[in-house]
């Protein structure tokens, strides 16, 4: 992307601070979150944006933001509503019976959303509406920001100051995964900063499945800074799949925090298929005995893209299980970063934890920094971690060639196979199918763009 003018990151920070009062005025008079927002802004102002001298941001320069310029917090979409609606209608959706909430630039669009009525057992409110109605604020206030720390996480603080769009979701015990929920976030390219916020409370014994999809119209230059807090009560089961297929110019930061009570099970998938600069953080606290998490991640990136996935799992109590598989496929001069931290506290005996991070480089210029880490303070645990970086196996290519399959086709099949292992782990079959399709499209775009496979 070529722009003559560069806006230093410090100026972006100043811009977001100075726009805050204007933003607050756009909120409903009785918005009970105003106090929290102001507090969050002051924390953001104190910290400023993350920078490369911070260990967690060492490989991920935010100077990329400078090329794009200021992201306004209030600008509205320049596109006509009908164009947006048509685009959303045409977007491929997962098959099957879904409840769907569509957010356009952070605002819920009731016309595009499809909600079941009486049968719906999930109780949801668009985050804004929940905030605007004072009576609904109490249960939110109880949880909001419990997991995302304003004091140490500048981006969480920025999100909290400007949070708009997203969902407050309460999943009662009676919910037994009858109908999955699709949260579709669309950025239309208004050059804006969007801060969606999700707060999910999966109550004891509930079972549910949610697909979170983030997408961008055309070559939109938007900055999305999303925070999600997931609370799983005792024995709750939640499937949470995030599919990001942003344009090559979009910038995206995301924090997913999960807190898991006794015997709860979380299945979390994170697939990043585009974006100029993408940073995803996942923090999971296995806070009580027997909690389990399956966390799988994938990113595909080509020339000009930087994708960074950080995961952190804290085993606090005994009998916990965590299983992670994270993969990346990089081509052109793409940059990838993966850091996975597993922490096993002294109480967390009988922990079973594994982390595997294979990475596939399709070109000589692509780079990946990978750092799986284990910190174990208990003595009776089973833990493993490892990462690999490599090219497509020549033995495998030859095997397919020897059966008549051309070399380039063989490479595509093998790359597809590498990705399949992640898609296969998506528990909802319809989402799995969607993921196969979207990842195939991305791979095809690699072929056209890079001629490396």
């Amino acid at each position, binding site marked *: 992307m070529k722009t003559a003018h560069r806006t230093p990151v410090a100026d972006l920070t100043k811009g977001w601070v100075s726009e805050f009062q204007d933003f607050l005025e756009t909120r409903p008079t009785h918005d009970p979150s105003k106090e929290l927002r102001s507090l969050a802004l002051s924390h953001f102002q104190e910290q400023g944006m993350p920078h490369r001298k911070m260990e967690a941001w060492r490989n991920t320069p935010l100077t990329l933001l400078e090329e794009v310029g200021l992201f306004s917090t209030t600008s509205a979409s320049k596109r006509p509503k009908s164009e947006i609606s048509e685009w959303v209608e045409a977007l491929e959706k997962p098959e099957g019976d879904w409840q769907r909430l569509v957010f356009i630039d952070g605002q819920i669009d009731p016309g595009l959303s499809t909600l079941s009525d009486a049968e719906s057992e999930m109780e949801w409110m668009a985050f804004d509406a929940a905030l605007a109605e004072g009576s609904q604020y109490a249960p939110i206030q109880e949880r909001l920001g419990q997991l995302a720390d304003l004091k140490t996480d500048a981006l969480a603080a920025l999100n909290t100051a400007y949070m708009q769009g997203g969902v407050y979701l309460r999943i009662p015990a009676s919910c037994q995964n009858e109908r999955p929920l699709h949260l579709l976030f669309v950025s239309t390219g208004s050059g804006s900063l969007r801060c969606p916020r999700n707060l999910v409370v999966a109550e004891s014994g509930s079972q549910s499945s949610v697909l979170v999809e983030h997408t961008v119209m055309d070559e939109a230059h938007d900055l999305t800074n999303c925070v999600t807090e997931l609370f799983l009560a005792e024995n709750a089961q939640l499937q949470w799949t995030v599919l990001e297929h942003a344009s090559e110019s979009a910038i995206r930061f995301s924090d997913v925090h999960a807190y898991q009570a006794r015997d709860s099970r979380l299945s979390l998938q994170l697939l990043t298929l585009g974006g100029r600069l993408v940073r995803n953080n996942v923090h999971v606290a296995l806070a009580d005995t027997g909690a389990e998490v399956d966390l799988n991640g994938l990113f595909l990136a080509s020339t000009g893209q930087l994708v960074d996935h950080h995961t952190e799992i804290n085993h606090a109590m005994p009998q916990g299980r965590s299983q992670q598989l994270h993969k990346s496929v990089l081509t052109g001069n793409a940059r990838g970063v993966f850091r996975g931290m597993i922490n096993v506290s002294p109480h967390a005996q009988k922990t079973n934890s594994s982390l595997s991070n294979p990475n596939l480089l399709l070109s000589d210029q692509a780079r990946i920094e990978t750092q799986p880490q284990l910190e174990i303070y208990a003595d009776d645990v089973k833990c493993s971690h490892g990462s690999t970086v490599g090219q497509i196996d020549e033995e495998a290519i*030859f095997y*397919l*060639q*020897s*059966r008549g*399959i051309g070399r380039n086709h063989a490479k595509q099949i093998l790359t*597809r196979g*590498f990705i*399949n292992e992640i898609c*296969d782990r998506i528990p909802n079959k319809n989402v799995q199918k969607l993921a196969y399709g979207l990842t195939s499209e991305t791979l095809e775009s690699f072929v056209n763009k890079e001629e490396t496979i």
Partner: protein
Amino acid sequence: MLEIKNLFAQVDDKEILSGIDLNIGAGEVHAIMGPNGSGKSTLSNVLAGRAGYEVTGGSVTFEGKNLLDMDPEIRAREGIFLAFQYPAEIPGVSNDYFLKASLNAVRSHRGESELDAMDFLEISREKMKQVEMPDDLMSRAINEGFSGGEKKRNEVLQMLLLEPKMCVLDETDSGLDIDALRVVAEGVNALRNESRSMLVITHYQRLLEYIVPDKVHVLSGGRIVRTGGSELALELEEKGYGWIEAST
């Protein structure tokens, strides 16, 4: 069908094949036997076109065409099939997807129409029965977690599907118990006909009790040092390779 003339080949600058001459006519089954390190596997890899096997002299002609000029996939489409001693394991790619892609690549090279999923299913089911392969191996990743016997059955299944003109079996008997050996050999024998040729490479005589060759060649030091009928295999079994090496 296959004509090898004075073939020299090296691996990592070390000469392994030192002047091989071999003619295999249509419908003939030839066996190559030899001790470890005699160049058996190198010969099969040179025929299949594996990278790292450098031909330094001689020629290989397949149906009048220069085989050595062809990429491995073209050799396969032209009708050469190598059943591997150690087939690759490929996670994430299902066996049926692979076999369909392979069969269609070969079919379209022959000018035949590509098969859709239903047609492929029908054909593959029939061939699977022939090698007594359980259905679930089709939906699993290629060779991943397959037993030694299952891998070899999978090789023969591919051979049955692709119907090559020239089959090269590289130590297909290694690591097989007697039942698996019988199934594999029956699969191979089912393909024998007056136009299809075979080159069976083996260290042991055992496989040749099931797949009886027309000719047996003994490879030693990168050259064929003796050629005879199927009785030569028995003689080797009895006297050992030392007998040949001592007499040459």
